[in-house]
C-alpha cells in the first residue's frame, strides 16, 4: 500500500485538528445545525460556509497571483454532479450531518454520527463496486475542470469581489 511521508500525514492531522476544533466552536457538529439549515430555521452552517468561501477565495486568488498555490479545480461532470448531488443532499438530510461535521460530531460523542460514518464507509464500498457500471453516467455532460471566470471569460477578481460583497451584505441583512 502506498503512503505519503509521515510529515505530510502529520501536517494533515494538525490541519484537521484545527478544522474539527472550528466546526465544534461553530456548533456545526450538532444534528440541529445541518437539519436546521435545511429547514431554513438556523443559518449558522450557511454563514460559516459562505464566510469561509469568501475569505478563502480572496486568499487563494491572491496567492495564485504570486504563483504560490496551484488551483485544484474539480471536473464538471454534469451527470455525476446532478445525480450525486441529489443523493448527497437526501442522505445528508437523513443523517443530519455532512461528512466533515459527522466526524466532528463523533469527536463530541454523538453515537449516531459514528453509525453514520460506518454507513459512509458502506457507501464508499458500494461506490467502488458500482463504479465500472456507472462511470458513463457520471461522465455524461463532461465540461472539464473549468472555473466560472474561465467559462465567462472574466477576471477572477470580479468574482472574489462579488462573493465578498454578497456575504457582507447577507450578514448585514440577517443581523436585522
Amino acid at each position, binding site marked *: 500500500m502506498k503512503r505519503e511521508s509521515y510529515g505530510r500525514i502529520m501536517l494533515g492531522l494538525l490541519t484537521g485538528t484545527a478544522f474539527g476544533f472550528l466546526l465544534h466552536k461553530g456548533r456545526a457538529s450538532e444534528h440541529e445545525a445541518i437539519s436546521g439549515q435545511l429547514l431554513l430555521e438556523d443559518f449558522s452552517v450557511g454563514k460559516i460556509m459562505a464566510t469561509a468561501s469568501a475569505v478563502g477565495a480572496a486568499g487563494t486568488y491572491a496567492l495564485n497571483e504570486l504563483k504560490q498555490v496551484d*488551483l485544484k479545480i474539480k471536473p464538471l461532470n454534469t451527470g455525476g454532479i446532478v445525480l450525486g448531488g441529489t443523493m448527497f443532499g437526501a442522505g445528508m438530510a437523513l443523517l443530519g450531518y455532512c461528512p466533515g461535521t459527522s466526524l466532528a460530531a463523533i469527536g463530541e460523542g454523538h453515537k449516531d454520527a459514528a453509525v453514520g460514518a460506518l454507513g459512509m464507509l458502506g457507501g464508499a464500498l458500494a461506490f467502488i463496486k458500482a463504479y465500472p457500471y456507472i462511470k458513463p453516467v457520471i461522465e455524461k455532460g463532461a465540461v472539464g475542470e473549468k472555473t466560472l471566470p474561465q467559462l465567462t471569460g472574466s477576471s477572477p477578481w470580479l468574482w472574489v469581489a462579488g462573493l465578498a460583497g454578497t456575504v457582507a451584505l447577507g450578514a448585514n441583512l440577517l443581523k436585522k
Partner: protein
Amino acid sequence: MHPLLRKRWSPYWVGAAIGGLEVLAMLTAKKPLGITSPFEEAAVIVADTLAPQAMGSETYREKSGKSPEINWEWGLVTGVVLGSMLSARLAKDPLPRPVPDLWQKQVSASPSLRYGGAFLGGALMMFGARMAKGCTSGHGISGTMQFSASSWLFVPIIFSAGAAVAKVLLGRKK
C-alpha cells in the same frame, strides 16, 4: 472566559478562520480541505482485504486509474475528530444523548431507528459525494472559493434535495 473554553463562537469568525485554514492548506499541503476521498481509498483497502473478487477492486482500479494511498487527507479526517473532541472537552460539553432532540420530536425516540437512518443516510451521502467528487467541504467551501463551476452547480443541488427531504422528515407536522 478564555475563548478556547467557550461553548460557541460567532459563525462569521468560525467561517473566516476556516477560510484562513483553507489558504494555509493550499500553501502548505498544496491542496484544499476535503473529507470524502479517504473513504473511497479506505473502501478499496477494505475490499482488497476482505473480498477483492466479489468487491471488484481490480476492475475499479482499471476503470478509475486510481490506487489507494495513505496521505495528507487521512491525517485530516482523523484530526477533525480529535479537534472537535478537544473543543468539546475544553467547553465541558455534556455527552450528547443517542437520539437528537429534533429527530426525537419529529420522527421517533427509538435509538435503533435513529441508527438505521444514520447508516442509510451516511451511505447515500457518501455514494453521492464520490459520484460528484466532493462534499460540503471539498465542493461547498474549497470548490466555491476557487469558483470551480462544478462546485457552484453542486451546492444548490445538495441544499435543494436536502431541504425537500428534511421538510418531509423533520418539518413541523400540522
